[in-house]
């Protein structure tokens, strides 16, 4: 396997989708090629950083407001569904 072929398989390798029959060849290439190893490590770093940095933190107040907005929309659409049972009409 050369660097160009390795490059084509790098995405599959990082996504855990590389066909098993290619795993040994890619490992062998990576052990021998510092350039592709560096590229693989940098992609792993980028991927991990994206994964943990994309979540936009919302304050408790923002989350509560969103929940209220959603519940209001649901009530408008289907007022009966999901309402808490009225204790006066709950079957005994």
């Amino acid at each position, binding site marked *: 396997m050369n*660097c160009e072929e390795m*490059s*084509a398989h*790098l*995405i*599959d*390798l*990082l*996504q*855990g*989708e*590389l066909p098993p029959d290619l795993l040994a060849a890619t*490992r062998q290439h*990576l*052990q021998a090629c*510092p*350039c*592709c*190893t*560096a*590229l*693989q*490590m*940098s*992609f*792993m*770093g*980028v*991927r*991990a*950083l*994206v*994964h*943990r*940095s*994309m*979540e*936009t*933190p*919302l304050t*408790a107040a923002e*989350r*509560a407001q*969103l*929940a*209220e*907005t*959603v*519940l209001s*929309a*649901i009530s408008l*659409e289907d007022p009966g*569904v*999901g*309402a*808490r049972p009225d204790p006066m009409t709950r079957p005994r």
Partner: protein
Amino acid sequence: MLQEPEGRQPMNLASLEARADDRALLRAVQGGDREAFARLVELHSARAYSVGMSMLRNEQDARDIVQQTFLNVWRSIADFRGEASLASWIGRIATNNALMRLRTRRRKPEEPLPELGPDRPEHPVVDWAPIADKLHENAELGLQIQRAVAELPEPYRLVVVMADYQEMSMREIADALEISVPNVKTRLHRARLALRQALLDYVHGRA
């Protein structure tokens, strides 16, 4: 040192506990408990909002995505069997809603894929070393990557969000975007090179 690819992450104790909490919450919501549903929205709205923001880059659109997503969740929660985590399921619904909004926003046919630079880095060995040690300790890098993702042209941004944040498979992304799997891989490869370069520029003080 050669490192194993990350692939899907193994579950740790916290994620197992989160799943157990999810199951209890799910049972309550499926039983029609409105307070439990409000709790579910509070727990998972950040995920839906983040998907909306990263794909649409507009705060009001992201809020609309949250609302639409949880309406969808409410309507279909009775059928949810828990094969995926609630967070993942909600994230997928948010992704689909954001994609639908993008399609209605788009008035002209899709343009050719914009160029992002060479498909191989010029100096892969020497360039990455200074950044590797900072990945786990520098919160500013997180902000830099958010900005860099936001600045990617839409075709690239979408695959990054779906692959790296939503952890969707190449086939799932291809189906969602109605493109081929090789096209998804090309976009992801180029996008990661561009993000890598943006981080290097930041670390080297050129950004």
